[in-house]
């Protein structure tokens, strides 16, 4: 189920700029299927967590109000090039995905 997730992390001065692209339909549960007229069941990421070298830097709660294939950018002060960024997400159906990247 879980599609790959892409992370890019680059250092800009002493701040790591992390960009994450997740693959997810992000259905709100309010949209109707054009063919059947039935509501498309809600299916969206509810939680995203990010760690740098195992230390938590971001815990996010998301809703269906985030666009399909969510993009998330954040900045972390302190890490060095070569440090490891790990991003995990969980959706409302219990699916989850995790990816890691090295800060470059």
């Amino acid at each position, binding site marked *: 189920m879980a599609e790959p997730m892409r992370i890019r992390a680059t250092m800009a001065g002493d701040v790591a700029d992390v960009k994450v692209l997740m693959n997810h339909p992000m259905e709100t549960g309010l949209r109707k299927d054009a063919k059947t007229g039935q509501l498309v069941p809600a299916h969206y990421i509810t939680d995203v967590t990010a760690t740098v070298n195992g230390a938590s830097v971001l815990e996010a*709660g998301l809703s269906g*109000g985030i666009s399909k294939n969510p993009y998330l950018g954040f900045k972390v002060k302190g890490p060095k090039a070569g440090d490891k960024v790990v991003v*995990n997400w969980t959706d409302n159906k219990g699916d989850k995905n995790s990816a890691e990247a090295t800060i470059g």
Partner: protein
Amino acid sequence: MNALRRNVLKGAAGAGTVAVAVAAGLLKPTQALAGVPRSAFEAKSVGDALKNMGASGPIDSKDITIKAPDIAENGAVVPVEVTSGIAGTSAIAIMAEKNATPLVADFSLKGGAEGYISTRIKMGQTSLVRAVVTAGGKTYTAAKEVKVTIGGCGG
């Protein structure tokens, strides 16, 4: 970040694992994984959402910058960037005021995370995009209007 939480997140059974942890009283149900209770995401108005977040009466702040288009052609994808210049920013929440459920996302910033979040949101119609920033136990807010040509919440 405690070891239990890591295990919960890594648990193969997903929601099941979380449910078990909640049932066992290891995690508080209202804040199973994030800082804001899920009820805030279901709130139908900005006021209710703020109340459920425990952030009633936020103070208007000029130190919060919201970067979003003045006119969004496609409401399904509206890029929003929030920068908080407030020292000690620990959380940033984003709301689209006229969406069916205004609270779009909440970000708890920890470790060395800066007061900056960039993402893309859906907007049903023209409305204010509001950022709610928590810093030092206080809440601050700022808003920017985004005109939406084609709504992105319906079919």
